[in-house]
């Protein structure tokens, strides 16, 4: 057999640095570097020049998901709940989703303004609803968010809506009472509409570091997150924490936010994402 010498540790260090800078986190980066070393030793990688491609393919396999589409209800309305920490991009993401369903797919969309806490949260969502051309259910500021959902679910059924999207207030997963509130909102929706919520999206800011993993775990424990939206990917942050999230929690990225306009939402493409991550 051909002697090929040992793997270039220097090259592995370079690749580890790329992964670290992309927010993949030290443990995930090291475990992937170990996999590369092993693949080289086993002859799976024949030349050092193949290492980066192997890495790219490995990351794509990790991130790839059979069901990358948004879940749809068997009979309408499909209910999508959107949650996440403060300022991550939830309300804007909902505007983009509403625009997509209404203006690209011709669906009837209703928004539930369940952020009754933050200053001008309802006004913000209402302005978006008008801009995009969809209906909205909202209560007074300070109202019970679960009550808003309750009414919105009734309205969605009564008005024959195809999609109901629920906006929730930003909250930190360390705020136990607010995580309980989120769970209550989910249960209200479950009771009112069979099979709901059909999709529970956690919006992550692409600039988030390792706390993104903790957020995903805590939010998922509270409301069973079915997919991530990685917002603000139009910046310079790579959002590599989603690799650890997929690896450890098996939660896939379904959508990416690439700007502040209604059109700036795209389906998640693992190959594009990995290419940007490794450059």
């Amino acid at each position: 057999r051909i002697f090929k010498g040992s793997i270039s540790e220097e090259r592995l260090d370079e690749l580890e640095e790329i992964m670290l800078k992309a927010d993949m986190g030290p443990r995930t980066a090291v475990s992937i570097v170990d996999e590369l070393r092993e693949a080289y030793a086993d002859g799976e990688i024949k030349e050092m020049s193949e290492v980066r491609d192997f890495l790219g393919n490995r990351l794509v396999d990790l991130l790839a998901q059979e069901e990358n589409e948004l879940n749809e209800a068997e009979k309408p309305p499909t209910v999508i709940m959107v949650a996440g920490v403060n300022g991550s991009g939830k309300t804007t993401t909902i505007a983009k989703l509403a625009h997509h369903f209404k203006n690209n797919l011709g669906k009837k969309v209703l928004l539930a303004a369940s952020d009754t806490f933050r200053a001008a949260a309802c006004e913000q969502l209402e302005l978006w609803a008008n801009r995009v051309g969809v209906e909205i259910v909202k209560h007074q500021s300070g109202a019970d968010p679960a009550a808003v959902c309750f009414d919105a679910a009734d309205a969605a059924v009564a008005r024959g809506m195809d999609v109901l999207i629920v906006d929730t207030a930003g909250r930190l997963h360390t705020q136990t009472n607010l995580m309980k509130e989120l769970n209550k909102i989910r249960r209200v929706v479950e009771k009112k509409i069979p099979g709901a919520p059909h999709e529970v999206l956690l919006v992550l800011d692409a600039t988030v570091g390792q706390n993104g993993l903790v957020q995903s775990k805590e939010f998922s424990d509270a409301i069973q997150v079915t997919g991530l939206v990685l917002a603000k990917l139009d910046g310079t942050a790579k959002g590599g924490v989603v690799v650890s999230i997929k690896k450890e929690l098996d939660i896939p990225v379904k959508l990416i936010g690439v700007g502040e306009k209604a059109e700036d939402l795209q389906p998640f493409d693992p190959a594009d994402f990995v290419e940007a991550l490794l450059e």
Partner: protein
Amino acid sequence: TLTESLSNIFRNLRGKGTISEKNIHEVMREVRTALLEADVSHKVLKTFLKDVTEKAIGQEVIKSIRPDQQIIQIVHEELVHLMGETDTKINLNQKRPTVIMMAGLQGSGKTTTCGKLARFLNKRQGMSPLLVAADVQRPAAIDQLQIIGKELGYPVYSEDGGRPQKICRRSIAYAEEHGNNVIIFDTAGRLHIDEPLMQELRDIVRLTAPDEIFLVCDAMLGQDAVNSASEFNKQLEISGIVFTKLDGDARGGAVMSIRAITGKPVKFVGVGEKLDKIEEFRPAGMADRILG
């Protein structure tokens, strides 16, 4: 925790005989992993760990009874030293109302911090604040600031249409006419790579000569923190940094990274959504948090 993993490493090393300088490097890998998990910038860590290693070797840590504790102590000292002296003073303008401009990435907490800072300056230093709604992009941004102003009982200057540059510039005359001695500009969130929007901030600086330019950053930022912060600093010459959402459990390594990269003082931290949730920055407390 880092303390546990270091003491484990040294227990194993002692078991094998004497500890050498090579072992120090092994230990530094462990420190590196812990700080990377805390979101400290990979680039900042290279220099930081080199300094810590030199100190550890210089202090003959390998001869000490508890080398693990001594290393943690050195790391902690170096972290506190890097965080800098407490500097939470606001530059007051003696000739006209003091102008403070808030800037930063989308969703970092600028609008909320404007309200908090106004309240802080009013309650603590008896100042009379004017809030300026210079975010004309985001839907209901002006409403948001007006609701905050109303809740606190401070006036909000806004215009119905008009560019942020002009709004900021005209707010100074308004403040002078109404006896407000501190003006706080709430600007729209923007990407550091958005050239026209960064130009807009530079215009505001040129037209109003702010006494303070605060970069408002989310405490949960990861490795990209150094990129955005250094670009904002380069283009605006920021005078201080505010970190928000420190009431969460993000370790806050970005605080260390941004402080190291910009050399600018961290003046305040946001510790909750309510408008009284702002505190002056304490370097030692932050070092403890990052070390976990």
